[in-house]
């Protein structure tokens, strides 16, 4: 019997953001937008959902008078991502 895939992660953009963040220490919003090829509005909404789930930490600050949003994955996010990949492997090996 397979476990259900985490609905927070089982979404194209949220999964892409988490996959990027798991590989780096932290990334700016603009970096995530560029690499996921998403719109700012959509990305903001998805980042908020990941933040509410406790999977990422969002730091808003000013750098050289410009607003800057930095995202980094939390330990709960890493655990959830690892679990997601494990469950995904289960589905794929079954097929």
């Amino acid at each position, binding site marked *: 019997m397979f476990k259900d895939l985490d609905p927070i992660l089982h979404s194209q953009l949220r999964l*892409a953001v988490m996959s990027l963040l798991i*590989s*780096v220490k932290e990334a700016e919003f603009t970096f995530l937008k560029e690499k996921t090829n998403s719109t700012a509005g959509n990305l903001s909404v*998805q980042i908020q959902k990941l933040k509410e789930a406790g999977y990422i930490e969002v730091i808003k600050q000013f750098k050289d008078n410009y607003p800057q949003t930095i995202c980094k994955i939390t330990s709960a996010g890493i655990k959830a991502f690892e679990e997601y990949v494990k469950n995904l492997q289960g589905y794929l090996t079954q097929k």
Partner: protein
Amino acid sequence: MDQEKKLSEQESLLIIQQMIQTAKQEQKDDGKGWILWGWLLFAASVFTYINLKTQWFSNYFFWNIFGIASLLLLLFSIIRVLFFKKTRKVKTYTAELFHKLNIGFFISLLLIIVAINRGVSPVLGFSLLLGLYGFWILIYGAGLNFKPSIIGAYITWAFAFAGLFVETFDWTMIFHAMAVLLGYIIPGHLANIEFNKAHGQEK
């Protein structure tokens, strides 16, 4: 990217692979630091060797020139960081590690240079310098999984070890030039080619 689209397991796996691959590109180094320092060190060694044979100037003339060039480069870097700082959009773990290791490398380098100026024989001192170069090259190569640097590190150490047994400074300069060529310059150019290829593909 449409976030509401229903994902299949294969699509999920593909997204993960693509994004991790994208993040990995950020970890690549352009090799320019190795190329710049490599050629400077190589030129100083070769010119010092020629100078030892011709006796145009004092024995360490070209190393003094190298020292001045290094100070100018350092000044240029400080100005660039202070006034033309490019903010990086992403921080990688390897970049953080390399930054800290760089500090350790330069402090250790300074210690050896001061030791040479305080009486340690230059023949032995340059072997110690090569040993330190090898250490940094290995960590760089291992951190970025870049084989030419890993091989370069062992070659550099081989020259460092051999350098302990030479009698004259002209041989030290030949070993130093060879080690820098194989440990810095060639891996640096290879890293630069790989970096340009990877970033060319992205565009």
